[in-house]
């Protein structure tokens, strides 16, 4: 058996997602049957050995993250799925949840067994109404077929899953803010330590994982670690969903081996740039990553390699900045979004981002001044990693700081002549 697209194998455009029966017939829910024969720690060990990295943006080894949770003490503990996909330019989890909801449910059951969670929550972006509908149906079917509830498949293990739709804040994608929101509190992030693995939802051990991360679990526990490792290119393990938005011929997202280059994604999958447009730069993985340029297209989409080039892989859904779109305006739009989505908890983010937005508005209106460049540069450092309470502002500063690196001439021309893209 050699499945090479475990995330999207059940997905077909135009067809409704698999029902429980169809999903099971296609080999689904096998991972739990396999996992429950092992000890939870062994399942955790397999996931760790598979080399699966978090697909939410940080890329941390999933099994290792799980292993930080303390041993079960008989009291509740939780798995929370971060399905609040609000990163600008990112739409991979939406595909998975709308088109194959049972894959996520199966992944959750198996992952929950590994960490011995008593309850699973899906924290879903409020606008994803189709995903909500399909997931609710899948959860109901799983209950009806004994895959959820008491003593799943006759085992000692029991699990309940709840779907929670978000009231809609970008910050809810930050795992501790998500936990606060799930508890009905303001979506402000929490200070770490303590990490959620120790004191998370309702003060209990909690693991928060991205949708795509968990969708990888069924494959690993069904087909084994070696199979998973073999899916990637070179030393890389598994597949991931990458995609493109912007003025390309065929925008979208596709499953591909980890280690695929940006060029392959752009040219082979997305069909290259639309006629009459040239690529000026791209954001490799969402609005909160640094711009890269055409010089970087041959990089493999691997966190380490992208970091060396001065950016982050993030969600690996790239956004193309073409030569007919104002880069300052692009950054302004992003900053406006992030300034509005700041939760208001810590100072650099709450009060720094609106200042940047104000300066970029001036630039776009032709009112920019030479001294503003200095302030922008300073703000990038001020809102940088470690200076703020969570990663929102440092992420927001990334497109800004890289635009100052690559498009300084544009800034200068904006100051002198205003925006000439209008």
């Amino acid at each position, binding site marked *: 058996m050699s499945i090479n697209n475990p995330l999207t194998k059940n997905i077909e455009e135009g067809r409704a997602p698999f029902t429980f029966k169809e999903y099971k017939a296609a080999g689904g829910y096998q991972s739990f049957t396999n996992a429950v024969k092992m000890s939870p720690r062994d399942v955790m060990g397999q996931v760790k050995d598979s080399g699966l990295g978090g697909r939410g943006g940080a890329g941390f080894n999933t099994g290792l993250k799980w292993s930080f949770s303390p041993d079960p003490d008989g009291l509740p503990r939780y798995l929370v799925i971060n399905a609040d996909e609000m990163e600008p330019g990112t739409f991979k989890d939406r595909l998975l949840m709308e088109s194959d909801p049972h894959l996520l449910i199966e992944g959750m059951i198996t992952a929950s067994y590994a960490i011995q969670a008593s309850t699973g929550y899906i924290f879903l972006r409020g606008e994803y109404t189709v995903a909500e509908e399909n997931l609710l149906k899948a959860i109901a079917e799983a209950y009806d077929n004994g895959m959820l509830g008491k003593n799943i498949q006759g085992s000692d293990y029991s699990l309940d899953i709840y779907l929670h739709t978000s009231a809609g804040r970008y910050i809810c994608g930050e795992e501790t803010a998500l936990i606060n929101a799930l508890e009905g509190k303001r979506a402000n992030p929490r*200070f770490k330590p303590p990490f959620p693995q120790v*004191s998370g939802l309702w*003060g209990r051990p909690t693991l928060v994982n991205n949708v795509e991360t968990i969708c990888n679990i069924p494959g690993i526990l069904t087909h084994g670690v070696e199979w998973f490792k073999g899916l990637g290119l070179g030393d890389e393990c598994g597949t991931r969903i990458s995609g493109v938005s912007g003025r390309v011929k065929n925008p979208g997202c596709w499953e591909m081996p980890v280690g695929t280059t940006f060029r392959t994604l752009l040219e082979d999958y997305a069909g290259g740039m639309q006629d009459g447009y040239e690529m000026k730069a791209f954001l490799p993985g969402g609005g909160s990553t640094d711009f890269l340029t055409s010089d970087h297209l041959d990089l493999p989409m691997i966190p380490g390699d992208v970091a060396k080039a001065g950016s982050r892989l993030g969600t690996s859904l790239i956004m193309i900045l073409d030569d007919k779109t104002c880069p300052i305006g692009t950054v302004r739009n992003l900053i406006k979004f992030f*300034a509005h989505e700041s939760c*208001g908890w810590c*100072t650099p983010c709450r009060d*720094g981002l609106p200042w940047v937005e104000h300066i970029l508005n001036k630039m776009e209106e032709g009112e920019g001044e030479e001294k503003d460049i200095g302030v922008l540069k300073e703000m990038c450092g*001020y809102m940088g990693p470690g200076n703020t309470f969570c990663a929102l502002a440092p992420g927001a500063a990334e497109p800004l700081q890289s635009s100052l690196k690559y498009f300084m001439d544009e800034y200068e021309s904006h100051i002198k002549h205003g925006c000439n893209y209008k």
Partner: protein
Amino acid sequence: MASITIDGKVFEVDAKNNLLQECLSHAMDLPYFCWHPSMGSVGSCRQCAVIEYANEDDEKGRLVMACMTEPREGARYSIEAASTFRAQAIESIMINHPHDCPVCEEGGECHLQDMTVMSGHTYRRYDGKKKTHHNQYLGPFINHEMNRCITCYRCVRYYKDYAGGTDFGPQASHDNTYFGRWQEGSLESEFSGNLVEVCPTGVFTDKPFSKHYSRKWDLQSSPSVCTGCSVGCNTNPGERYGSLRRIVNRFNDEVNGYFLCDKGRFGAEYVNSSERIPVSMIRNSHDADPVQIEADIAKEALSKAAKGSIGIGSPRASMEANFALRDLVGEENFYAGIAENELGMLDKIIDIYQNKPVNIANIKDIENSDAVLILGEDLTNTAARLALGVRQSVKNLGRQMGADLNFPIWHDAAIRQLAMDKLSPLYILSPHTTRLDDVSHTTHISSAANSARIGMAIANAIDSSAPAVKGLTKDEKALVAEIAETLKSAKQALIISGTSSREPALLEAASNIATALQDGDNKANLALVSAESNSMGLALMMQGNNKALEQAISAVKKSAIVLENDLYRRASSSDVDAFINGLDQLVVLDHLKNRTGEQANLVIAAATFAESSGTFVNYEGRAQHYYSTFKPDSAIRSSALWLSDKPFNEITAACADAIANCDGITDLTPGENYNFAGLKVPRQHHRYSGRTSMRANINVHEPKQEQDEDGVMVYSMEGVPAIKDASVLNSPWAPGWNSNQSIFKFQENAGGALKQGSNGQRLLLNTCTKKTWYEAAGSNDAKEGFEVFPLYHLFGSEELSAYTPAIQEKATSAYISLNPEDAEKLGLQASDGVQVEHNGAVPFIVREATQVGTVGISVGLKGLNFQDISSAVALDKADNWKNSETWLAANIIASDKREVNIEGVD
């Protein structure tokens, strides 16, 4: 302890504290906003950033927030290296601040001003528009000016997380975050005034103060003690041009820490009341109009009247005033001026504190207790500051859970998120629901007498040598077993009771429980609350004799001198009327007009706490000295000096000599000979303005600074203030620290005990280790009519603060509370009134949690005299009743407030 290096200097620090706290303790100026010693750290404002270095070779280091950093042994930090970041942080914090310091009431004592200067932000680069907000009406106590907000979250952390308020919080987000109520309206928390001090800038300011505002540096102030209840919170009153302008908290870690209740903060303006007695008056007969007399004539008249007179003392007058009266009329003619029942209960408290194996609990003991039982005391309404302490005690389970996971004690948010709603046990036995019910494990509704029986049974369940109780119901027995088990397994249990129930058996039950819990040196905490600022002092002065008001009334004398006491609040109207009618001469010394004073032949204008010095003894038996804040008009004198010709210090000394257990009251001040390099302690700030001009319209010559009665402080800006080693801490100030945050400069460690000033003296020392018991009383016989229990009001029940306009807005007129079944039996509709036997007609409220056959009757509120009501009372529907405008059910402080069933309210 850990040894760390900060900017090249080695410091020994307490690793249990966060780095910010340790930097402050070691006299370093590190700016901060969101951290507060009582509320811990959350790391939101980013102002206390420092650089932490990983090892000796690390040159770059990483930025950390000092408030969120545990000092590591051997670690290296730099404050200097993060100064650029801190300047950036303050610059962005100030983007939307209106810079309205000249018209802002916080100006001159603003933490934001201090931190802005300290962080080095001097030039505004941001050239955009500022965000603006709408302000809300938040009631009679607090002004709201949201535009000044710097979003440090201190207000909500105080109001919700610390004080348990539910009607205030953060709204919206990003740089539009808003702190307020869901809609305009009076803040519900009875501790809302602390927002004024907790807010680092001028978002929340003192509304009564703003009506006659003065800058901090223009206020004359002194160390003082609140007159609102028996807790004796330490205060700093501020005066300008002869009127009391405001009260702020004075830190005392053993009594009130950083916080006051709203009665204490806003209830002292009776000093400026139009009801004040401005000058002494005399008349020859009851019907004649009083004639104003000069002070010297008044003094002479008073001495003449003293011959053959009895003296009636007061629980709201100082030790010195009471003693001076006792001295003047002779010990045999001195009576306590409170009812026999209350005096007996106070004597019992003194006996328990001295002769039972218990630990008398101060506020720190209360906050540190991990299981609490409250017996029949409506703590929020009778001793509010202690209720705030109990609210902290229930958090100890969460702190313990955090400690088990090695969370630092200051990591406030993490502890709250871990603990969720898990609270240390609090049990309340009360005839009605109380404000603390939201954090109580169980509030058991039962009469005071029955609660005493349950309490006795709890003691017996803990230690079987305590007397047993018969006849408890099955439910009561289960409750007894549960509470006994909880208290026994606690590390530090606390029992609270008091005199407000008028049921002595409750004190005995509390004593038995605390005694039962004693195990060798391990003693249970016990707090027995009394009624007024000097109730305990008065009881000490009576030395166990039973010369209460009843005895004074039956003493059959022709002349009486009443000290700061409205007798109609102490005994039934008919008894007091008969007493006064039988007198040839009645002399009253008081500050405010009242029913007793109106009938006097000689009224002496007595100074309030703000214009006189003296000693109060609080519920713990702690003697505390208050210094006069300002010199009153020459017609007004302190009662002690009216009644005695001795210098003030000699009165104190004589009192200490004559009265058992009172030796400590002479040690409360550094003594009248105190000086530092020949100088005394100034009441006025070194920036006090107008010294040479404020009296210039009267006389261009500056008058000689008048000496006060203590001989320690002067009514002047000249002298040696606390910052330069004076041993009296007036108002805190330090260079660069103009706000109340400067208090840490006077603490041994930031947030800890004071280096200067007095915490007071505990007069009653408990060395008892021997268990002795009070006997359990039998069950009460059923009486005719409704069994009465008192309902106290934080705002309105206390005599003096009720004269204050802001307090009146939060009070209501008298009412009664009934069970719905009884209301139906009486045929009452929601808008009806109830005629109370031997008393007036009042509105009523219906509360589910009132036992059938019992009635709660408000105490001290206008419209009913609780003293005229017997322990069982007949009730009838009132004829032609119409609710008055002063009936404000929404102002009742109880947990079931929203369930209070009264038409036309809310």
